[in-house]
């Protein structure tokens, strides 16, 4: 210990005695605002929109940024090989583009210089837009109302609450030409909930057989899709599709009215 203390002391003295600091050591640090490595680092609640993508694409003088929109996915490609570190893009969209002072840019392959950020399109349609789309489709296909018969095959009544909500004045599904009818004989669509309890198996089959062709069966809720938390036991059958053929599955526990409407729209698109 004592020996090492002594040596340290000696070194200290030698530094103090040095007149000029090592010039290389002084310049070792990189300034914080140095424009070095451009990365795509979105903020927590950043949403990539069509317009932002286009603005970014146009902001780049060397076309290092390209924007793609294929309907379901929005993609931003950033080619660091083309980037001249002008910083234009960061000014346009500071939520997505971050310019760091890092310099570890080198890559072994050319393709690795291209960074990609993709975002699936957030489901932007409102309940109303969905409904209007549905309405025009129903008009085209049926020329009249679409009729739905709801069948509870053992649900906990959570899904029923949401299906009932479709009929309240807030969601008011009837304005889109959809009616809930009292008998399967009048129905185009069967909306089935519940894990299909064994006690309801026979009734469900009879209701399915009484529905005129062509008919669509929609399984509503996690229980109807798979048996849900109840699974497949002595009293349940583990999903509607074990009893009748299912065309569309709407998961959720329970699915909210918007989700139900989207499922019905999907079922119509299947025709």
């Amino acid at each position, binding site marked *: 210990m004592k020996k090492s203390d002594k040596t340290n002391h000696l070194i200290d003295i030698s530094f103090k005695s040095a007149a000029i600091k090592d010039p290389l050591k002084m310049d070792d640090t990189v300034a914080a605002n140095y424009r070095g490595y451009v990365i795509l680092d979105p903020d927590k609640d950043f949403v990539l929109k069509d317009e932002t993508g286009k603005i970014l694409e146009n902001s780049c003088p060397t076309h290092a940024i390209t924007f793609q929109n294929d309907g379901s996915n929005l993609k931003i490609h950033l080619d660091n090989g083309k980037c001249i570190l002008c910083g234009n893009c960061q000014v346009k969209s500071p939520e997505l583009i971050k310019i760091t002072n890092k310099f570890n840019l080198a890559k072994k392959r050319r393709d690795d210089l291209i960074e990609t950020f993709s975002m699936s399109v957030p489901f932007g349609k409102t309940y109303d837009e969905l409904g209007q789309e549905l309405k025009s489709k129903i008009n085209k296909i049926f020329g009249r109302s679409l009729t739905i018969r709801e069948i*509870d095959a053992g649900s906990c009544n959570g899904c029923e609450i949401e299906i009932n909500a479709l009929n*309240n004045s807030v969601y008011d599904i009837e304005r889109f030409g959809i009616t*809930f009818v009292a008998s399967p004989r009048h129905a185009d669509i069967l909306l089935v909930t519940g894990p299909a309890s064994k006690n309801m198996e026979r009734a469900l089959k009879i209701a399915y057989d009484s529905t005129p062709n062509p008919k669509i069966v929609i399984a509503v809720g996690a229980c109807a899709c798979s048996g849900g938390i109840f699974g497949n036991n002595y009293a349940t059958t583990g999903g509607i599709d074990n009893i009748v053929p299912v065309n569309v599955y709407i998961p959720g526990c*329970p699915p909210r009215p918007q989700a139900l409407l989207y499922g019905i729209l999907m079922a119509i698109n299947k025709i």
Partner: protein
Amino acid sequence: MSHKEIIRKYYSKLGKFDSDIKKIENNNELHLVLNDPNKLHDFCKFLKQDFDLRLLTIICCDERKLNHGFKIRHVFGSDADDFFLFVTIFIDESHPHFPSLYDVFPSSILYEREINDMFGLIAKGNPNIKPLILHDFPNNVFPLRKDFNLNDDVKRNLKQFEFTPITGEGVCEIPVGPIHAGIIEPGHFRFSVLGETIINLETRLGYTHKGIEKLAESMSINDVVFLSERISGDESIANSVAFCQAIEKIAKLTISQKAKQIRLLFAELERIYNHFGTLGGILADVGFPYGASRLNILKEQIMQLNERLSGSRILFGVNQIGGVKISITDEMLIDIHFVLDDAFQIFEKIFDHLKSNPSVMDRLRNTGIIEKQLARDRGLVGISSRCIGIETDARQTHPYGYYPSINLKQKTLRETMEHQVELQKRIGDVLSRFMSRVDDLRQSKAIIDSITTLKDDGLSMSMNDELIPYSSGLGYAESHRGETLHWVMIGEDNSIFRYKIRTASFSNWPVIEHAVLNNIVADFPVINKSFDFSYSGNDL
């Protein structure tokens, strides 16, 4: 009075049966074990006459591995004290019979039928042992026995259910269900009518039986909370609170004040959105869509509030054992008060409108009347009993959670008198149930209003180490339908040995058969809606 004092008070009166019984105390539960099952009948008669207890439920449990027999616990409750009395008898497998209590407590018929279905034990003397829950099930298979496997594929044989034949000149039968015309749960109603008038109704339920009690035995305790939420979707808070409280009682866990407050807030929100929905449903069934629409908008507003608070429109995923998962911040509390103030202002306007609308009041008044004696005999709870002036409310008789800390504004003498007069008008018809729900709504609002500051002592406690095997506890809560009881017995390795659920729907369902008598068929929907029972909560 503390629980110990209450128990001593009751126990001291049991002098003449002293030699026959063994006493075990557990919190507010007193367990009495009768040595001789044949003495059960006399003992229960004594309980009814001297203690004025009511039968809450009968719990059967297959304890053949532990005690070489089945244990049947008759649970009694008092309207006056926070006290539960368990009277236990042993049934040997070789003699699968036990005495029926149908002539002392008529409500026992239902529980005995259930035990007959699920355990194959026959209640001697019970006049009605038709299958209750299981349809087309073989006679020798009993799902809740321990030797039955949850996933056993039971071969069902289509059997004709025997409805009581009602015959006579001009008597017609109308079968309704299991799939109903509206968007509601399945159940079968067999009406016998003379002209328009219903002279008999027999219900056959069990269509939504999902094996919940058996399923719980295969799940971990924490997962069963999710299962309990799905006993009946609209009672998710009440059921999960009852289950969590049963486990917390067994674990001797005291949850934080904040968790209690949050449970209470969500429980009352649940009550409010469901009552709005039911009142709307009643109005829709009497052909007054204006009122129905307005009330359903209020229901939707509360459901959207639920979503903002908990992430679920029907409040799934709030509770966990030892507390809650969802926190309520001060801003959220302001949101709750704001939405409720707004909703109730509108509600009172709609209510005034309804009261002055003769076409509505006329349909509600004198429709679907039940008698007081019937309500007592059948052990009705919740709105169904309050509509005839019997005040049963688990929040008051068995205060749980944060309810004991709630200080509602004291009523003035005048208000108390007015309330008494109002109660005298309750004759057990649809209007009385309508008014009881309105009362309940206002009370819920007052309870939520009384919470202005939130405590700050954590959301959840973790359950320390293992629970004692074969210890049991009764959890209870007041759902918007009434008193909900969950009895849990813990098995080895923190598993569930037996989970018995008695929702308010189960004890109340049979009353519908009486309420519709002498009414016209067209009034059945509104009578049914005024009770608003859960099919799923009944069938489990």
